[in-house]
């Protein structure tokens, strides 16, 4: 078998080149006529990952758009998120069957740009379709930062999300703590967490944990999510992921060590190693007093009977008050046959009244401050404390400085360091330094570019 493959390899390689050329050639024609739409309407294919809970809101949104734009039809197609979304985008771009507009994540913006798969925003935002500076300035800076690659805008945010501190008020009261005064500093977070931890039967294992430190396997699908939450603490200590000139990572500086040490200390204080990683189950069943959580879970907690809960801003770190903010981004694909209409849809999404409607129906956070001037929305927030808390905290929302090259690898290095330090394999400083050495190695292989 081995012999055969080697023997055939040469000939097949030649064949393959031809075949590939043919494939590419054919694919150029294969899909050219794909979009047409009925009765002269233009059809825009839109890939999203709205799950069962947000699909009804999305359908309403699209109906509204089509009502306002009778010539355009939005064909929304669900693509499972995370790995699945990127798999589909890769294969679609390869075969020239990409959608017009798709949700993308900052993680793989680099790959899409390098493949020349998506438009720069300044290419489509021209003339009457341009994006006024007033709009751009109104968008939360953290979100805009993540929509860019090397300083150039390639996507626009559709909705915002961030993390806050989810608290069980009943457990606060049981421990003699005032739920209206959630922890304000790291030290308080640590001491509250300890006070809220209970070992009822004295077996050395805690039935109730005061705080959940989100440690997940570094190789798993939640590793990016773990690192994202850790960034909030890195920012609070005044750190960031990478230097401005992108030549080396910064996460192993003092701020990183402080943030990871805090996590490790709480993790060990509370014996979280023998606590579940399904923190939602633990919180809902009143076995967990505080956790990092996002607005997407609000409807879930509302459904649980007898759960007295609230959302507080994250405690301030040694340097400042901050949280990590992000969102889902819309990108316009070069393979689109109707970029103008697709762009219309994208900018329509930014309109304050649409943002307000989308936020109220879906539970996502608005991407711009202007929405807070809409009386209906303000009234809505007043009636929904958790959402209001999240929206207010967006003011201190920060996004990690985008990593232009090898971002996914570097994120996995950070994840490994967090896992090693919290599970006690090495101390925070050593774990972060080890990871940073690997990350800097990756960065050293990056092709050098002039910064604008």
């Amino acid at each position, binding site marked *: 078998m081995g012999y055969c493959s080697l023997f055939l390899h040469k000939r097949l390689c030649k064949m393959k080149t031809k075949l590939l050329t043919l494939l590419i050639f054919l694919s150029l024609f294969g899909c050219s006529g794909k979009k047409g739409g009925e009765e002269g309407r233009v059809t825009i294919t839109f890939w999203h*990952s709205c799950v069962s809970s947000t699909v009804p809101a999305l359908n309403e949104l699209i109906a509204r758009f089509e009502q306002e734009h009778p010539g355009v039809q939005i064909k929304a197609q669900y693509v499972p998120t995370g790995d699945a979304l990127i798999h589909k985008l890769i294969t679609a771009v390869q075969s020239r069957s990409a959608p017009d507009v798709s949700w993308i994540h900052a993680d793989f913006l680099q790959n899409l740009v390098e493949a020349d798969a998506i438009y720069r925003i300044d290419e489509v935002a021209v003339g009457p379709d341009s994006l006024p500076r007033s709009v751009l300035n109104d968008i939360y800076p953290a979100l805009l930062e993540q929509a860019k690659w090397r300083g150039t805008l390639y996507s626009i945010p559709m909705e915002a999300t961030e993390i806050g501190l989810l608290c069980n008020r009943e457990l606060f009261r049981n421990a003699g703590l005032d739920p209206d005064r959630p922890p304000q500093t790291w030290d308080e977070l640590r001491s509250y967490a300890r006070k809220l931890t209970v070992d009822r039967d004295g077996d050395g294992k805690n039935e109730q944990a005061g705080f959940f430190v989100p440690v997940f396997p570094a190789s798993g699908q939640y590793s990016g999510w773990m690192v994202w939450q850790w960034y909030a603490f890195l920012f609070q200590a005044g750190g960031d992921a990478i230097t401005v000139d992108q030549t080396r990572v910064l996460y192993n500086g003092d701020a990183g060590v402080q943030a990871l040490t805090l996590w490790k200390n709480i993790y060990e204080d509370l014996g979280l190693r023998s606590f579940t990683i399904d923190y939602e189950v633990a919180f809902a069943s009143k076995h967990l007093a505080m956790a990092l959580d996002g607005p997407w879970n609000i409807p879930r907690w509302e459904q649980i009977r007898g759960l007295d809960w609230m959302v507080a801003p994250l405690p301030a770190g040694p340097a400042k008050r901050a949280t990590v903010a992000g969102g889902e981004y819309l990108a316009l694909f070069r393979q689109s046959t109707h970029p103008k209409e697709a762009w219309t849809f994208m900018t329509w999404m930014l309109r304050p009244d649409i943002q307000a409607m989308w936020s109220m129906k879906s539970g996502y956070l608005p991407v711009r401050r202007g929405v807070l001037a809409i009386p209906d929305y303000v009234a809505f927030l007043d009636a929904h404390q958790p959402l209001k808390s999240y929206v207010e905290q967006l003011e201190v929302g920060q996004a990690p400085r985008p990593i232009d090259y090898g971002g996914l690898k570097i994120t996995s290095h950070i994840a490994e360091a967090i896992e090693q330090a919290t599970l006690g394999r090495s101390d925070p400083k050593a774990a972060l330094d080890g990871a940073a050495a690997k990350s800097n190695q990756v960065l050293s292989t990056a092709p050098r570019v002039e910064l604008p």
Partner: protein
Amino acid sequence: MHIASNVFLHVLLYVMALVTVAPFLWTVMTSFKDLGDILTYPPRWWPSRPTVENFVNAFQAAPFGRYYFNSLFVAVAVTLGQIVTCSLAAYAFARLRFRGRDVLFYLFLGTMMIPGQVTMIPGFLVLHWLGWIDTYAALIVPGLASAFGTFLLRQFFLTIPRELEDAASIDGCSRFGILWRIILPLSRPALATLAIFTFMGVFNDFLWALIVVSSDEMRTVQLGLAIFRDRYQTDWGQLMAASTVATLPILTVFFFAQRYFIQGITLSGLKD
């Protein structure tokens, strides 16, 4: 005489079976629980407020009827196709003499050792070239041949006594006639075995279906299940309800048809 040991055997088997099937029963139970019952510690076996809401919501979230039809259609088509192609190929490998037979056979076996993830992208390119993306053909045709199936059937064919074929060939039966009239009827258990494995494999496939299909009308059940999970959360109740619905009918079919899967009626042909 062996009553005691017989009872012991029964008890042991039933306990084992119960342990094995418990996670599935739990799935079924969970699909009737509301969120409060699901998110509770220690876990609760029976729902305290039984509800069918999860089923209703799951079916509102996505057209599972259509997904179900797609999965069944594709799985049945691939299964039937594989039975034909694999038994033909297996017969050639088991009984016919031709140059390079063993080399070719080991090449076949070799392909089983290549992880599917790595052939995914080129396979996708071929489908695209054929213009089959987002069609049933993309889900069916690549599965129409199988090294596993060929190997499985060849092994079974080898256990069939040659004398039966010799008699038939003296009677003037063609090669195909021998395969059709003698070998295949004797191999029903093996064919049935191949059928379930193929069916299960296709029915449970996620990654390939994800890549080659985009539109809602072409989506399979496994792709549909993904809608209950996103980057941050899982909708346990609906996920459990949908996977109960996805699993139960297949399990029912297995229950009633296992005789055909495992006990070929014509096995008597093997007894002299």
